[in-house]
């Protein structure tokens, strides 16, 4: 019996689905295990549930999205938030720090028909079984969830900070050695420290780690010369709506 899978999208750039499509040579192997019943990006043949596994990409930003995500939840045994937008609201949630009117008029010449709500991750409205953090989540983490759901075990998804993976690669420490504003010490790992690996600071795209010391991180960023506003943007950029960051992001 193959796992019946649905892939759904709300407010997002579709990059997480692209990461899924990027599996290339692993796809035939995966197709031995799962059957994509609903995946608009991959096939125009769309079948209704129930689904064993629903991967939901994107943030919830309209009344229609709220209804849809609740309907998906009802049809799905296991529901996974695929990527930052679904996990916390992600990049689209930066508009929560301006008025609805302001955001609408920047984008639409005639915003009269726009009915959007404050941007949230999907667990504002439905129960989420697993969270695939990242912008986008790394393919191996997505596959880890597929394997775990098939086997009925808990997926191994890292919640510790990026620093751990960064040290595995023995990168020079951008924060201590170069005094650069690296978000590694508060950001969940799973990316493989891909930015520090090429000498770039962690932007924090996996959102908060399991137990971030936010107050201390703010102090560290101040020490190396960041302004309050710059620090605010650091925390808002990907996961300002996460419960752990809401206070520092001044929601």
């Amino acid at each position, binding site marked *: 019996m193959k796992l019946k899978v649905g892939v759904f999208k709300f407010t997002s750039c579709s990059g997480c689905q692209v990461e899924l499509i990027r599996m290339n040579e692993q796809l035939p192997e995966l197709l031995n295990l799962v059957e994509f019943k609903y995946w608009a990006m991959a096939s125009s043949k769309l079948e209704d549930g129930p689904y064993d596994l629903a991967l939901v990409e994107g943030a919830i930003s309209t009344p229609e999205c709220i209804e849809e995500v609740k309907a998906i939840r009802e049809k799905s045994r296991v529901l996974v938030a695929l990527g930052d937008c679904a996990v916390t609201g992600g990049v689209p949630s930066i508009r929560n720090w301006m008025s609805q009117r302001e955001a609408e008029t920047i984008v639409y010449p005639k915003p009269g028909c726009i009915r959007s709500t404050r941007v949230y991750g999907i667990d504002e409205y439905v129960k989420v079984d697993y969270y695939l953090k990242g912008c986008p989540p790394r393919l191996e983490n997505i596959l880890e969830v*597929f394997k775990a759901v098939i086997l009925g075990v808990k997926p191994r998804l890292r919640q510790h900070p990026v620093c*751990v993976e960064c*040290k*595995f690669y*023995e990168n*020079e420490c951008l924060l201590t050695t170069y005094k650069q504003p690296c978000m*590694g010490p508060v950001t969940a790992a799973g990316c493989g420290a891909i930015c520090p690996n090429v000498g770039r600071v962690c932007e924090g795209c996996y959102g908060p780690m*399991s137990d971030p*010391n936010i107050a201390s991180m703010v102090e*560290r960023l101040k020490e190396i010369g960041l302004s309050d506003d710059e620090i605010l943007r650091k925390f808002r950029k990907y996961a300002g709506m996460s419960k752990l960051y809401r206070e520092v992001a001044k929601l």
Partner: protein
Amino acid sequence: MGGASQLFKTDLEGLDRLIRKLRSGGYVVYGPVKQGRSWFFLEIDSVKQVDLNYVRTVLPPKKLLHPPREKLFEFKLDDGFEVSEKPTPSAVALFGVHPCDLKAIERQDEFFSQTPEDPYYLARRRNTLIIGLTCTRVDENCFCLSRGTGPEVSTGFDILITDVGNGYLLEPGSAKGLELLKSLGFQEAGDEYLEAKQKLIEELKKSFTKHMPSEGLAELAKSLLDHEVWKETAERCLSCGNCSLVCPTCYCFDVYDVLELNLRSGVRVRELDSCQLLEYAEVALGGNFRRNRFQRLRHWMLCKFGAAGGGLYSSCVGCGRCIVYCPASIDLTEVAGRLRGGG
């Protein structure tokens, strides 16, 4: 020091010959190389790549004996259950290991040799030749002197190199090391080389500014589990794990399986873990023995003070890495000082 054993001397060219000899003998040679603003143990083929005046590398040479992440074996479920072990690791020569790191390797050796032995560590260790290097300088974060782990060292190496100014003193520390030195035809060193080394060591000893004496520290720390310093320091601690991941004596690891998509074969992986991470002490149903940050910080420091389960095996050798790589500038020698009643 050195005792009755034979001593040799050479120049920079001689050290280069030593490296070439090791390479032609099948060793992959690693030495301290500067890249960016930091030093790393990297594969070398000439002494010219090495910075003989380095202070400390980001990761200790532990990374080559107890790697941050390694595949232990592959498994396959077919008719039966098939396990394929990795082939014997290639021979490695560590060139230019400082006394603190030599002492740390000795502790790891002892730890992994306990019953049950760790076959993965020991297989690599047996294939490893260690060439120590006496430090030429001490920085503000070195404190091996007060730990009794440097700057003078008499065990833990096959050969020990000391730059005595007008040449290099080579001391054998094992039969293998002695044989190697003889085979290279190095000249014997006179007493003046030993005297010069002794003078260098005395000079080095004067330049230490950081201290964390072992005497009574473990007992003291154990008796002060409620000291305010733990919670105060934990306010700054990021729980990033850097301190333990760069520590040459931290050995804790995690083991997990990675399945292929066929769900019938996979690899068993072991990777370094850190007691600073929330997940480290997590058990079934979400229980956690060290949920609070101060408990994790205290646990690690107790371990480095020799007061945790690891005892001496995991205690501090004074290399200073945890201080250098702490984003929150936490200094365990300051914590030890507070416990002793200083401030």
